């Protein structure tokens, strides 16, 4: 049991940090522009596909650098020529725009790369077990994923707290109108933040592609989870996003690792059930089975009882 717990924690950490890389960009965008960017996970997917294509010619490492830049550039262009145009029609229009964008990117990926899974491999340098615990290997690549995520978090944190730009962005997150009134070029900041946010998603895609499989459904799998994190974490709170990411990563990981089910719960109270009962599906429900829907459950509960999110201070 202990070994399962240790690895569940490690796995939860990897997933959580990966989610955070996506959520950090989304939080920035959401907080500043009020747009829940449905296409955010699509940028993540684009990152993986760009990096895959680059890796065919130049190898993994150049892809790690170039792909996020390309994704960021694309994001900035989309903000400039798409989102900004829609902005005048209100938030619903913006949301719907990003919704359509996600749909289109999915289709475009299938158009350019086809519907098959892609053989995007981690670099050979990292193809060794970092350590072996209870007979299970923890690959160096996963360690690398953790490292990159932590680095990005630190970098982002320093950027936001130490640099001038960061301070303006922070101000824009909590008081968007005031910042505009102070004479800052808010549209430019928006474009930059959108670009950087997309690029962060791109990085996540590049490093997740080899382990989580590069295929056209990879955006859908992560897509809504990322919003869930941003909303649970709370608007305008990077720390909230980090906590929510880790929370969901660990929650899912532990849920899968456990073998608990409704039956166990009933047995605890000395209740038995028959297999032919109408509600058999409910009795036989196990925690691992519902692990992927736990975040949504959490989301609904948080929104009902604390609409501002865990660490948020602004209500919608």
């Amino acid at each position, binding site marked *: 049991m202990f070994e399962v717990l240790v690895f569940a924690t490690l796995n939860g950490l990897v997933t959580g940090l990966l989610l955070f890389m996506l959520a950090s960009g989304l939080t920035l965008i959401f907080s500043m522009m009020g747009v829940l960017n449905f296409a955010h996970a699509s940028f993540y997917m684009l990152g993986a596909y760009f990096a895959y294509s680059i890796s065919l010619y130049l190898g993994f490492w150049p892809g790690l650098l170039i792909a996020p830049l390309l994704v960021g550039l694309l994001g900035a262009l989309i903000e400039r020529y798409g989102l900004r145009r829609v902005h005048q029609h209100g938030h619903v229009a913006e949301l719907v725009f990003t919704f359509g964008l996600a749909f289109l990117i999915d289709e475009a990926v*299938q158009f350019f790369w086809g519907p098959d899974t892609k*053989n995007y491999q981690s670099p050979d340098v990292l193809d060794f077990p970092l350590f072996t615990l209870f007979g299970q290997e923890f690959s160096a690549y996963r360690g690398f994923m953790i490292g990159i995520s932590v680095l990005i978090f630190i970098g982002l944190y320093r950027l936001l707290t130490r640099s001038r730009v960061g301070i303006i962005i922070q101000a824009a997150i909590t008081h968007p109108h005031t910042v505009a009134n102070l004479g800052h070029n808010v549209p430019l900041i928006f474009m930059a933040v959108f670009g950087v946010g997309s690029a962060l998603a791109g990085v996540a895609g590049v490093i997740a592609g080899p382990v989580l499989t590069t*295929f056209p459904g990879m955006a859908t799998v992560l897509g809504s989870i990322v919003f869930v994190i941003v909303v649970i974490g709370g608007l305008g709170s990077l720390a909230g996003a980090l906590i929510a990411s880790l929370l969901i990563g660990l929650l899912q990981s532990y849920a899968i690792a456990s073998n608990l089910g409704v039956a166990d719960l009933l047995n605890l109270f000395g209740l038995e059930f028959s297999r032919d009962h109408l509600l058999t599906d409910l009795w036989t429900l196990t925690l691992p089975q519902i692990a992927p829907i736990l975040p949504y459950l959490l989301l609904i509960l948080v929104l009902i009882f604390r609409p501002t999110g865990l660490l948020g201070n602004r209500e919608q």
Partner: protein
Amino acid sequence: MNIKNQKMSYFSSALALSLLLILAQPAFSQEPVRIAFMDPLSGAFASIGNSGLKQLQFAADHMFNAKGGILGGRMIEIVPLDNQQSPTETQLQFRRAVSEDLRIIFQGNSSAVANALNSTITRHNRRNPGQEILQINYSAVDPILTNEQCSFWHFRFDAHAIMKLNILTDYIAENPDVKKIYIIGQDYSFGQVVSDNSIALLNAKRPDIEIVGNEFHPIGQVKDFTPYVTKIVASGADAVITGNFGADMVSLARSIIDSGLDIPIYTFYAAYDGITATLGADGVDRIHLIHNDSGNPLPSEERKQYYRAFKAENPNNDMTQPRILTALQMVVAAMEETQSTDPYDIAVALEDMRFTTISGEEIWMRGEDHQVVQGLHLSVHTDQDVEFDADNSGFGLVTRYSVPAEETVVETSCRMRRPRR
């Protein structure tokens, strides 16, 4: 890449040509025999559907049209219908088939779709006597299609899941080193069938084998399989059985391999359509596949030539489902025998038909439940002795274990309702 475009592109020339033919030769003026192919041709599952379509198209052209057609000179025309792997869309495409008078439908992907089509056809045929439609199922393996829900209008040309599991568990049971088995699958009917029957069959054949895990995960929703693999490792399993397909299959295999766990993975769908290429060197000797087709070496020279001819025309595709050819051949044989294209006549002729495939194997369409009985094979993913690889990757399947047709028979609970004529 797709036949529809081809269809569009040749539209005008076909028009001119058909005009010419009508004027010139009465023998060629006969209507083609039109057969529908209904599978996903767009969307996430398009590659599997398109691959099947190419194989059927090739089978029709290469085997029959190039040799002067069937029924005394009629060509076979394959009409692609895109059901997007959705039961709803399947219904719509079915109605299209009815209104275009397409009476034979080839369909294979997704048991949900096959079930939907099966009940739709049963209903349609009951309500519209004289306009019956025939379902040629070349790939959907849900046992109920030839058991509880068997239908006179449905013929299956692949072994169903229990037949496959029966052989798979035989193979596992023969290996005394296997003591602990972990079963993991997608949380839907096929996953359930695999799980339930693996347990039952293994219990009967090797009571000493312990089932150390029986896990279901939501289909297509798992980001990372590592947490599941952790449990597999912790359970001390020495083999894994999974019915996963698509990205879930790849991700699961990848995670198992990444964790350093060196145990065999017994699968149903872990080859072709990008999967073989993606697993590459990591999957060698780990990925085992139970299928009705044989891996390398291919059993007959005729089969090899047919494969090469297919490859020459479709360099980016593999002959993943030779049973498509077999199904078409048997349907044509039924047509020739009865000199009719009426679904009822074809169905009657298909019942209990015995047929020798291009692999040289004699197979049997059991009349009782319309389930084909054929040999089953267990192959392994490798790059040694692979004459015909998959995904042009150098890796492919090599057969390790074969069972002749008569040993694959399992009983059926089918009580077929036959229409009266």
